[in-house]
């Protein structure tokens, strides 16, 4: 089938459209997902196609929304639960972390919770401290959850297909600033497997492991650095739980230097985990400590002047690469 250019958000919508067409157990629940089509137009057209039985508008009740998803999933349906901004996880974390994530284990393995929780993450839109966070570290730290961080239209669709078909609770972290980014997307349903990193650019001098939108920034930085003679390998884990440690470590063994980039604050972020994993798996191949590029330890600020300084970008990534490859 054909491959077209689609925006990131349309790739998500298309995935859902096709998944709902293929499986009656798939339904969407959340605030303004049906009548309004989702605040980010992620669900445009789905109400007309699938009706109110499968497109459920709810009150502003994140705990009850996620709980509904958990209960329905435990009964065998495949809910896609939308809670808009990732920041709102904080008001329903119990249902996600104490219920959905642990239910299978606590119940002795008897139950499955095939629920997808879609959240819009990421900063860069002056949305302020409560509408801009990247909280993947919270989630990846919770046994039982899976966390996908698509960085392209292609991966949004493929990861969403995998997520809906997965029998575990999956958090899909869509990046708000990427919603309009276009990319080649095959028409057919395809899966991007979880726990398989993509090596988006091969390089020999330094490996940059980037999450979510930072993949775009890292790729741009790699272009700049190539002109300076620094060859950068860009690795996109695509899911941080499960995390493809093998690919990252393999790359580290070749380049001997690793930089990890994410939007989230550096302290306690995935960068720390990846650094530790790289050290475990490739210690004897490192020529430098793993460098982390992340946000400072502060909430996401509002003013563009502050937010620009807060967010990692291609400039900071490039600088980190220069620093880690520098020799006297």
């Amino acid at each position: 089938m054909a491959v077209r250019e689609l925006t990131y958000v349309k790739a998500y919508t298309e995935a859902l459209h096709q998944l709902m067409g293929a499986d009656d157990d798939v339904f969407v629940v959340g605030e303004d997902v049906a009548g309004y089509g989702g605040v980010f137009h992620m669900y445009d057209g789905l109400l007309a196609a699938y009706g109110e039985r499968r497109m459920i508008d709810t009150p502003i009740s994140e705990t009850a929304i996620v709980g509904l998803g958990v209960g329905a999933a435990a009964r065998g349906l495949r809910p896609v639960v939308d809670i808009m901004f990732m920041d709102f996880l904080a008001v329903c974390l119990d249902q996600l972390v104490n219920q959905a994530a642990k239910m299978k284990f606590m119940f002795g393995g008897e139950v499955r919770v095939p629920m997808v929780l879609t959240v819009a993450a990421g900063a860069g839109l002056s949305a302020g401290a409560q509408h801009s966070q990247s909280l993947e570290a919270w989630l990846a730290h919770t046994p039982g959850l899976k966390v996908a961080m698509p960085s392209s239209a292609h991966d949004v669709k493929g990861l969403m297909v995998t997520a809906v078909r997965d029998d575990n609770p999956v958090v899909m972290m869509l990046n708000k600033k990427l919603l309009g980014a276009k990319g080649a997307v095959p028409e057919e349903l395809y899966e991007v497997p979880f726990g398989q990193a993509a090596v988006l650019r091969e390089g020999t001098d330094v490996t940059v492991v980037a999450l979510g939108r930072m993949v775009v920034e890292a790729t741009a930085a790699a272009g700049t650095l190539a002109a300076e003679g620094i060859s950068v390998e860009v690795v996109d884990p695509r899911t941080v739980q499960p995390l493809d440690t093998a690919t990252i470590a393999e790359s580290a063994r070749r380049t001997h230097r690793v930089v990890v980039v994410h939007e989230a604050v550096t302290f306690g972020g995935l960068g720390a985990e990846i650094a530790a994993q790289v050290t475990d798996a490739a210690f004897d191949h490192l020529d430098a400590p793993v460098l982390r590029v992340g946000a400072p330890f502060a909430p996401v600020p509002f003013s563009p002047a502050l937010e620009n300084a807060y967010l990692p970008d291609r400039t900071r990534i490039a600088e980190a690469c220069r620093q880690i490859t520098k020799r006297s």
Partner: protein
Amino acid sequence: MEPVGAVATRTDRAPSVEGLDAASLLDLHRRMVRIRVFETEAGRLMESGDLPGFLHLYVGQEAVAAGALATLTDADQITSTHRGHGHAVAKGAGFRKMFAELFGRVDGYCHGRGGSMHINDLSIGMLGANGIVGAGLPIAVGAAFAARYRGDGSIAMTFFGDGASNIGAFHEAANMAAVLQLPVVFVCENNGYAEFTAQARHMRLDDVADRAAAYGMPSEVCDGMDAVAVRQACRRAVDRARAGEGPSLVEAKTYRYYDHQGVKGLRKPYRTQEEIDAWKARDAIELLEARAAADGVVDAAEFARVWEETRADAVDAIAFARASPLPDPATLTRDVYTD
């Protein structure tokens, strides 16, 4: 025997034995006795140091679980609370797997991974006890959603306490169920205390049932020490749910004989002995046995046989649990994910 005490006089008591045949009465009785025996034995084992962890025991509240669950089938789903043994037993869970779980053995309901607060049995619609107060309510709403989505005719029921009626999850779940008109029955077991805090100190209403009005949901209050009354109130709510008329709330006024955790409280008493004695004087099992005997519906010997069989069942189950192997630490990370 008439109810005594301030709380009991506030209840809208339904007719007791009237309308129920011997089989229905014995069914209620058997469910209550099984709970009482299980919980008494569990408390005894805990006090003797045989059980790890902690236990929230259901003794005293048997009429609620028995009456409510007598209205459901195995296809109907329930979610429970941290005080969940009664719901599991009344829904039909087996003593062997329950005791084995309390002992932390591989033959337990959760193979030793869950413990007292996570006993579940999907085959009989028991979607699990829950360690988080109020967390079971939204999940039951989801189960009700799935039932209607599939149109399979089943409903969901969720148990919660007076304390949980203060938590956001209760209000969100009640509103959601009402807005979506889902087939779910909210059963509030009002035992008068949120852990160690008396109802008058944690809410300004006398009846949790009044909260249903805020969500446009019908509700009624019943005597939680009278299994027949609970059964009849829940029957009305269940019928509404099955008929597609949406959710209802049933509040059962009841009392726990034991402490919040374990059997006897070790610290400063927060309840008077007088209050405890007054509720015990209206013990649900004794009440049912006395009425049935007085009305001549069930012979007392039948009740005695239930006690005898149930005690034998408990002895067998405890022996089974003690003999069950401890889980292998090598299996520790199994079942975190579904492959």
